[in-house]
């Protein structure tokens, strides 16, 4: 029985539409035992939807699903669990008011005489994190964690289910190198145990590292399934975007566009224990990269500049003038913008229409006689939607029903439309597909070339290296290194600098 031949999962001709919007069109998809199967495609191609059908969150309109050869009806998450499917959700399935351990074992709680043993759950969680090579206190409330740790908790939660099929929907979108490596070695071990893994990612290098086969979706249709060794990266990208992609990850020297004028200067900026005496100068036209390990204080630094956090000491000056940013609205009036780290909690009102989200910081420009003009709102929104190629059924649709990557584009679009002088971006390309990522990076360069200044946080070093003119490495809340782009020979060099070895 256990030596079943053939695919462990087979999805045949799966179709699904939301209202009148067809999202999946007769998609075939199958996974072998012990295989890591990558699922790729543009934002909104239907990857998450296909997987949610497998997990019982959505119901397919037509098609059939076979598990180990026998046909199953997956009507809810329960029946999915019963047939051994577990999932790492892209938009997280965590309860903020519960602890990490409580979340990991939700619906799976270890009990004795009917009572939950939280201490057992905690020690199990600690072990789990050890195998993931993550140092995280499972007694912490999830709501107090930064995005990256949410993601790790989400992964741990899926692992704890003892599933024989594990779906991972962009598990590394918010993770840096170190955590990603931990996850990969774990995946290798799971594979050896005969567990099948479906791996969704926009990062080509990751897919090459771990996947055996790849399936590419475009506009709800399957366009490619193949073993990876039979494909070149260019072929995959072409399948994903439908054309040849440009080489956006190459670094261009753009020093002629950088003036000597200092737009932003921080002197000894301190905020609690997370930011300690940071001084930096940002020149007009410059793109400044911030690198560092998780928890090194990069997010806090930007948040302090933006007025979300109050500095405990130190100064912020813009164009040589000292300013006080008591709140983001002060920062915005100083023409600063911040694309925050967590799009769902910090970037969007998920329940509101895309138009409303896009125009929230722009209201002043969209009034006629003091009143908002729906026409102008719609026009402006359509402009932004077009520029950032946000894929949606209708501009009035709720932003929460967009695909993950498209939500991120809304956040980016909303902030770039404010035409800021200083643009700060915290992991702006998390979850954005490979085609658009390039376009966003090109846009960042264009914006800088037009005399704006940019600070960029990214845990994807190739991305950081490709656009930055200078990179600051942060460690424990301090700037441990300031590197000119030209001084950095390759990615490994930067990685070592981040780890503090060089």
């Amino acid at each position, binding site marked *: 029985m256990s030596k079943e031949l053939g695919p462990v999962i087979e999805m045949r001709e799966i179709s699904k539409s939301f209202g009148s919007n067809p999202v999946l069109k007769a998609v075939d998809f199958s996974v072998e035992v012990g295989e890591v199967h990558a699922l790729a495609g543009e934002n909104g191609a239907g990857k998450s939807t296909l997987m949610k059908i497998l997990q019982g969150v959505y119901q397919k309109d037509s098609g059939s699903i076979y598990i180990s050869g026998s046909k199953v009806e997956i009507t809810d998450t329960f029946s999915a669990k019963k047939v051994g499917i577990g999932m790492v959700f892209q938009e997280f399935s965590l309860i903020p008011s519960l602890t990490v351990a409580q979340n990991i074992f939700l619906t799976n709680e270890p009990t004795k005489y009917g009572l939950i043993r939280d201490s057992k759950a905690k020690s199990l969680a600690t072990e789990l994190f050890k195998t993931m090579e993550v140092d995280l206190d499972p007694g912490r409330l999830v709501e107090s964690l930064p995005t990256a740790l949410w993601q790790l908790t989400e992964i741990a939660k899926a692992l704890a289910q003892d599933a024989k099929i594990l779906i991972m929907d962009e598990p590394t979108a918010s993770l840096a190198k170190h955590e990603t490596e931990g996850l990969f070695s774990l995946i290798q071990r799971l594979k050896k145990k005969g567990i099948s893994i479906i791996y969704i990612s926009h990062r080509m290098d990751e897919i090459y590292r771990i996947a055996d086969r790849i399936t590419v979706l475009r506009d709800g249709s399957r366009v490619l399934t193949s073993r990876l060794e039979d494909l070149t990266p260019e072929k995959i990208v072409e399948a994903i975007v439908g054309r040849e992609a440009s080489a956006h990850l190459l670094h261009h020297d753009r020093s002629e566009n950088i003036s000597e004028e200092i737009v932003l200067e921080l002197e000894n900026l301190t905020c609690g224990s997370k930011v300690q005496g940071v001084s930096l100068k940002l020149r007009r036209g410059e793109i400044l990269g911030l690198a560092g390990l998780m928890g090194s204080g990069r997010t806090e630094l930007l948040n302090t500049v933006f007025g979300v956090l109050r500095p405990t000491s130190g100064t912020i000056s813009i164009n040589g003038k000292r300013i006080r940013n008591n709140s983001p609205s002060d920062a*915005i009036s100083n023409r600063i913008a911040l694309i925050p780290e967590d799009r769902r909690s910090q*970037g969007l*009102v998920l*329940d*509101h229409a895309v138009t409303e989200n896009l125009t*929230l910081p722009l*209201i002043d420009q969209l009034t006629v006689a003091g009143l908002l003009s729906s026409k102008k709102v719609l026009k402006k929104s359509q402009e932004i939607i077009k520029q950032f190629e946000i894929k949606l059924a209708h501009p009035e649709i709720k932003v929460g029903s967009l695909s993950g990557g498209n939500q991120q584009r809304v956040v980016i679009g909303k902030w770039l439309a404010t035409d800021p002088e200083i643009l700060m971006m915290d992991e702006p390309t998390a979850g954005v597909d490979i085609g658009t990522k390039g376009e966003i990076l090109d846009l960042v360069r264009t914006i800088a070339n037009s005399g704006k200044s940019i600070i960029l946080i990214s845990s994807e070093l190739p991305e950081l290296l490709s656009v930055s003119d200078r990179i600051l490495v942060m460690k424990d809340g301090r700037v441990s290194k300031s590197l000119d782009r030209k001084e950095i020979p390759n990615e490994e060099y930067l990685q070592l600098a981040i780890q503090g070895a060089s």
Partner: protein
Amino acid sequence: MSNQTAFAPILSRLKRFEWRQNIIYIAFVAVFLLFAVLLRDSGFTNPNNLMNILRQTATITVMAVAMTYVIAAAEIDLSVGSIAGLSSVVTAMSISSWGLVPGIMAGLSVGLVAGAISGGLVAWLKVPSFLVTLGMLGLLVGVARWITASAPIPIADQTYIAIFGGGQLGPVPTIFIWVTLVVGIGAIVMNKTKFGRHVRATGGNLVAAGYTGVKTARVKFIVLMLSGGGAALAGMLYAGRLQSGRFQWGTGDELSVIAAVILGGTSLFGGRGQVIGSLFGAVFIGLINNGLILMGLDVSQQQVVRGAIIILAVALSRKK
């Protein structure tokens, strides 16, 4: 082709019409027609009677419009009823001591100040509005009783009574002018101004709104202050109608007001605000009361049927 583009927005709008949020209009029409048929001999559709329904729900409507903002910002205000009572009392006392205009100013100030205190605590000390305004509810009733020794304060000023009570401006009862003004301004500000947008953003996602430059604390402060102001105006309308100020005017209105707002399609969890819906919610409740009384039902029967209608209306609004 041109035809298609012309129809497309209407069609897509219809498709996106949210039954759940707009159930109030359907329920309203259904109940109205039902009563019109059942009560055709009892004068239900008599213009006078319809006018009376509007008139009697005016105070709830005014409070509901302001409450729509509070709830859209994901807060709540339980003190509206007692602000109305206190304001009626203060207006009445001030008119008899200092005259019409100071009286109106005093009444309105009471509401704004009470609202500002709650608002300040909620906005800057970040304490739950449910508890703050519940405390305020008791406190203000106590104050109103204290300064009046629980007695009514009569209002003799005929101008006041004309403006806030039963007067007319030409053929139009002044009370309709108040309601029209409040609902009109309320709806425009909610849908067409920056402030309205900021209120909904604050209620929809406090953190994201803050990151987008919305001064969320200030928004919360202002909506609670406005709610106090709206309640004060309602109190003054009570005083005009009943020609006196009394601490009891408005007692218990908080639940009716919140019910009107939620029936109108505003979510208790914030982010949405339907001012026109709140108007219909308030009038809907008045309609039911009026119809059931005209039917000659007992108090207990009225309660049963009213409860059942609300449950039914809400149940029909379910997501299909």
